[in-house]
């Protein structure tokens, strides 16, 4: 490795290590930290990185690709189908209306109509990288605002394709370097029919590969037990799909997203997710840093009035359009404001489209350099906009005004706090209320929170792993904390927090599955409830009864099995903790199933549950019944 590359890597890493934790510390979020780090090392700051910043940005764009792949992984096709209305409706309207409004603004500013339309289209897009990352960091993707944001961003990613096709038609000057941006595109010169065909074939190929091709590959690699090869396979898949998409002129991010959705139902989903997540994080960080470094402060200083005006106008227009469109979708003013403000910046795709435009003679170079600065600035402002929304605007709206409540000295005094009132938590909560036990609920779903509040329940909206929220919910007086959150990570984070600040709380935790249960047992939790085991056994009991087994026997057999299974859980958790070696998740599951079956076989008395009423041994010991006396044989008369 050449020293220069190593040195550059060190500069980026050092900047990230220095700035990001600081930014987090001051509540600014990691994205702003990366941007600041980029500015610090860029030409405007220390000048440690210079012209190669652009190349770095291209490499780092792969982070956006991985991110969309990961988003796809978490979205099963059925969920995606459910989102079709917001994607097409909200997303489509946002792009069209915003593009028209911004183009109109450009026309008024005296820009030729072709350039105005091109600018409108380019600036209508928002930043998937910053916004999705921020939402994920704040666990907000599940809220109406999060869903709407996601829908809009997804549509924008799709819209890049027709925009790329449309832009050359708006050229006002001969292309400077023909096809420079499309130099990877084999099909740029091919007739439209062929291009469309290739496009469909490529997408079909990705779907087919994900559905049928990758599973055997992943299984093979997983069986080898080599983690790094597994990671390499996952990266290879994402990289390959991205390249293929670029070759046919599609957005690589979109292709990766499709590949992710196809793999969302695969058993390797979680494995892939956790393996490539760090790459996404690092590359995205690099991407944000290169955005920060690319901000040309000299240009901004020279055109400060124009650029400031443009940034302000663009962000205002984008916000206004979404405020108008989003109300019906989110159905809630607070959420709508979050949605609109969150998408008010211009996205990273604008950089690509702007350079494409200037190379193809669509926009004059003077305009693109200013537009690039505007885009970068709007991205840099986004974390501040999020902060403004979170700290200043949101507290003015209804129940989700957590900071206001935290200041409220009268905390709840219920003995039970339930974190997570979804399908699991709500049954527990209803049961406790039916028995006159006061419960305080913490939940993330804004609609659910509002409904429950209307019913007069003490419900708090927000992240239960925040100290102030727990405190407001009365954690210092409560006796029992019930954790019914969807994610084991968040549960564990919460457990750590509770143990530090509210050590008196008894914690009961719902585990999604066996793997989560192991995590919780490892964390030293005593009350762990796997959400499916009781219901599975009830089904098993009914199955036995349908087969003619007496009800009481079936029920006792299930009780015996449950006890046995709980013991197996604890024992295997201990074994698992000892064995630090890595196995792929799927392989681990098979091994575990084997271990469980062995454990079952070793317990011969699983079937013999009724010894007390079993009179086999009594029968053996009972004295023989008196036999009927042998009748005297009649004398035979022979």
């Amino acid at each position, binding site marked *: 490795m050449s020293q220069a590359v190593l040195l550059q890597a060190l500069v980026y890493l050092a900047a990230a290590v220095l700035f990001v934790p600081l930014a987090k510390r001051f509540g600014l979020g990691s994205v702003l930290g990366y941007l600041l780090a980029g500015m610090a090392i860029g030409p405007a700051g220390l000048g440690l990185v210079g012209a190669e910043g652009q190349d770095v940005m291209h490499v780092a764009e792969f982070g956006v690709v991985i991110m969309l792949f990961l988003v796809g992984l978490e979205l099963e096709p059925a969920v995606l189908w459910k989102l079709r209305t917001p994607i097409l409706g909200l997303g489509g309207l946002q792009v069209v209306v915003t593009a028209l409004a911004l183009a109109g603004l450009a026309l008024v500013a005296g820009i030729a109509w072709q350039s105005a339309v091109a600018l409108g289209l380019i600036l209508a897009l928002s930043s998937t990288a910053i916004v999705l990352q921020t939402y994920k960091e704040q666990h907000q993707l599940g809220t109406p605002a999060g869903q709407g944001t996601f829908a809009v961003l997804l549509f924008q990613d799709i819209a890049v394709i027709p925009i790329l096709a449309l832009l050359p038609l708006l050229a006002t000057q001969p292309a400077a370097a023909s096809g420079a941006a499309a130099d990877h595109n084999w099909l740029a010169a091919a007739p439209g029919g062929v291009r469309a065909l290739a496009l469909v074939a490529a997408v079909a190929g990705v779907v087919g590969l994900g559905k049928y091709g990758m599973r055997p590959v992943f299984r093979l690699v997983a069986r080898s037990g080599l983690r790094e090869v597994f990671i390499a396979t996952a990266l290879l898949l994402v990289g390959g799909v991205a390249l293929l998409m670029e070759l046919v002129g599609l957005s690589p991010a979109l292709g990766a997203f499709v590949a992710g959705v196809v793999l969302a139902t695969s058993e390797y989903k979680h494995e892939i997710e956790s393996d490539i997540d760090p790459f996404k994080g690092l590359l995205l960080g690099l991407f944000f840093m290169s955005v920060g470094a690319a901000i040309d402060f000299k240009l901004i200083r020279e055109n400060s009035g124009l650029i400031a005006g443009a940034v302000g106008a663009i962000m205002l227009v984008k916000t206004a359009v979404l405020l108008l469109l989003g109300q019906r979708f989110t159905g809630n003013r607070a959420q709508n404001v979050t949605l609109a403000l969150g998408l008010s910046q211009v996205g990273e795709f604008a950089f690509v489209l702007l350079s494409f435009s200037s190379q193809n003679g669509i926009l004059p170079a003077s305009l693109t350099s200013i537009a690039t600065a505007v885009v970068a600035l709007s991205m840099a402002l986004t974390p501040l906009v999020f902060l403004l929304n979170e700290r200043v605007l949101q507290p003015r709206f209804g129940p989700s005004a957590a900071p206001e409540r935290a200041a409220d000295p009268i905390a709840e005094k219920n003995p039970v706090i339930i974190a997570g009132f979804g399908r699991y938590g709500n049954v527990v909560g209803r049961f406790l209320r039916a028995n006159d036990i006061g419960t305080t609920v913490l939940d993330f779903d804004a609609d659910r929170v509002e409904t429950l509040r209307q019913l007069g329940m003490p419900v708090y909206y927000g992240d239960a792993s925040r100290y102030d929220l727990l405190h407001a919910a009365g954690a210092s007086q409560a006796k029992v904390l019930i954790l019914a959150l969807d994610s084991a990570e968040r549960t564990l984070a919460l457990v750590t927090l509770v143990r530090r600040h509210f050590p008196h709380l008894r914690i009961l935790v719902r585990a999604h599955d066996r793997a989560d249960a192991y995590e919780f047992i490892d964390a030293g939790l005593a009350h762990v409830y796997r959400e499916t085991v009781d219901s599975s056994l009830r089904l098993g009991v009914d199955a036995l009864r349908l087969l003619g087994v007496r009800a009481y026997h079936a029920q*006792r057999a299930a*009780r*015996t099995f449950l*006890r046995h299974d709980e013991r197996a859980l604890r024992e295997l958790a201990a074994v698992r903790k000892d064995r630090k070696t890595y196995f792929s998740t799927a392989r681990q599951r098979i091994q575990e199933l084997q271990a469980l079956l062995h454990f079952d076989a070793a317990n011969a008395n699983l079937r013999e549950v009724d*010894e*007390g*009423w079993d*009179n086999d*041994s*009594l029968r053996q*010991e009972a004295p023989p019944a008196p036999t009927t006396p042998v009748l005297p044989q009649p004398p035979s008369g022979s």
Partner: protein
Amino acid sequence: MARILVQFAHPALEKSRVNRRLIAAVESLDFVTVNDLYEQYPDFDIDVNREQELLLAHDYVVLHHPFYWYSAPALIKQWEDLVLEHGWAYGRTGNALAGKRMLSVITTGGQREAYQETGANRYTIQQLLVPFEQTARLCRMEYLPPFVVHGSLRITEAEIEAAGARYRALLTLLATGQAAEYAAAQAPFLTDLAH
């Protein structure tokens, strides 16, 4: 010092006046183990191994419960059915409990006078407890006279207090090997109702 296992069964202890106090009176004794069966096995899913080990670790078995329908609450019967296994507690090879002593500690709603031939219940407590006595015999245990608190529906606070103290004193007698003194102390409460 002999060890005493109190097998306590009350399906609704939260509503009990007398039994709660009786248990409170003896549970602090260090030679007494109180095994709260309804708390331990709310679903009647008795852990046979645990119960047998408890029996082996003690010298006296006290069946302590309210006297329901001239017998015990259902969980005591479940416990007998499952824990007193053939070949372990009784039968040709069933000697696990041989030599231990068993007694009943019960509370009744009816007054003492009701439990005699001329009373509403027509039989004495000892007659009605014959199934428990014979269970103990079959398990090669000695069955001691019962300790009974009558009239639990009308009993006064002072009387409950006194009953608790007597219960505690009697268990202490047993633990110190004075089973004969225990029987003697009980005798006036069990016979000669006419006097």
